């Protein structure tokens, strides 16, 4: 089943073309690592899938529903904002800088959207949130404020918060890039657990080791284009493109 489909998606910031005719299909249960040099459009691509960025032209289809469709840069999106919101419910997103709500405790961060957006009963939301916290190993931080926990813990809460909306697809935008090296592992473990549960995921990352372990498909982006789309084994051992080879060697040297 196609979970995400991008057809001829283009996007520019000013004169800079960030997404250059992207075509991509992500199937159910796939874990796709998106790698490539910075500025290659990885994050923008992710952000187009849940509407944080508007595409210039092309079409994005989420689980068979057209989420965004534009014929030209200055035409209106053919999908209404209301419809977009309904469709984007299927996606959860985790950000590089966590973006937890600082004025809410850990548990309040998680129940916020289920209660205000889905209208879930508060007691039920708390029960679910506690299960999610147990899953990411942070039940003891239930009533802490985000400022009182570490970066790795914040990111695990952010993952629990996104899961709280019961998404079918999870988008990770450089989930470990803002973390101290010793905290990276705990977040990667949580993501690996999700992969084992067959959650469909798109992960923008610079951690090549993690990408090769968790992903069953790797996409290499450069200059707004997808220049490789294959298995992790192939991309890390024998990439077709010399550009990819140089990039991976450069990263490995760090």
């Amino acid at each position, binding site marked *: 089943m196609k979970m995400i489909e991008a057809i001829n998606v283009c996007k520019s910031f000013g004169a800079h073309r960030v997404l250059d005719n992207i075509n991509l299909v992500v199937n159910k249960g796939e874990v796709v690592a998106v790698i490539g040099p910075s500025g290659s459009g990885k994050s923008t691509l992710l952000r187009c899938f849940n509407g944080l960025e508007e595409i210039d032209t092309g079409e994005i289809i989420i689980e068979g529903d057209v989420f965004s469709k534009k014929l030209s840069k200055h035409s209106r999106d053919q999908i209404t904002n209301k419809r977009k919101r309904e469709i984007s419910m299927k996606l959860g*997103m985790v950000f590089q800088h966590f973006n937890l709500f600082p004025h809410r405790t850990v548990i309040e961060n998680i129940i916020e959207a289920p209660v205000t957006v889905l209208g879930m009963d508060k007691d039920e939301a708390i029960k679910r949130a506690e299960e999610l916290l147990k899953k990411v190993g942070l039940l003891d931080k239930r009533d802490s404020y985000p400022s009182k926990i570490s970066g790795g813990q914040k990111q695990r809460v952010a993952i629990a918060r996104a899961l709280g909306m019961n998404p079918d697809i999870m988008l990770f935008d450089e989930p470990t890039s803002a973390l101290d090296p010793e905290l990276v592992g705990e977040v990667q473990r949580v993501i690996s657990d999700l992969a084992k549960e067959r959650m469909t995921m798109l992960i923008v990352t610079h951690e090549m080791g993690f990408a090769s372990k968790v992903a069953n498909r790797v996409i290499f982006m450069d200059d707004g284009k997808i220049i490789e789309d294959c298995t992790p084994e192939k991309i890390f051992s024998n990439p077709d493109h010399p550009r990819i080879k140089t990039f991976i060697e450069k990263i490995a040297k760090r």
Partner: protein
Amino acid sequence: MESYIKYLLDSTIFILEGSVLTVKLYAVTIIFAIPFGIILALMKISRFKTLRYLISFYTWVFRGTPLLLQLFFTYYGLSIIGITLQPFTAAALTFVVNYSAYLTEIYRAGIESIDKGQYEAARALNMDYFQTMRRIILPQVVRRTIPPTCNEAITLVKDTALVVVLGMGDLLRSAKELFSRDFAITPFAIAAVLYLLMTTVIVYFFRKIEDKYSVYE
């Protein structure tokens, strides 16, 4: 000695009677100006260009002219074109409009200081504009703008003394009357103590809110 204490008490009571008006005007201004400030701030950063310009014009005028002139305008000026207001109504109206202008700019700056990641997180959780503002953005704005709001609240206590020009009997005017009658400095001292008392209560009150809101920092 005993007679001085009696004089002190009588004078204080007389001045306190005048301060009823001061407190009333103060309360009306605070109660209306804070919510107005928040609403106008949201309008000032909205995507409607005309609305933004309109609000900018409003804050430009009311922050750029003396409050005293605005009082004259509302009370005396409007009466010339046939709108006659009671002194208290005119004063309250002017104070609310004037203070809302300052608070609008304070809250606007507060809203703009919130990290855009907060909006993105709310959006990614499918919260709509009102849910995002009410539940995520504004609570953080309130916390950040407590100190400047407290400043305005203190200034307001003292600005209320301007209503003397509309012939209203407020705290300061009562003191002035006693001074004229007795030619003694005591009434002014009492007035000063009463103003200090009020500002102290306000500062204390704001400190309490600040403590309550700062638990998350």
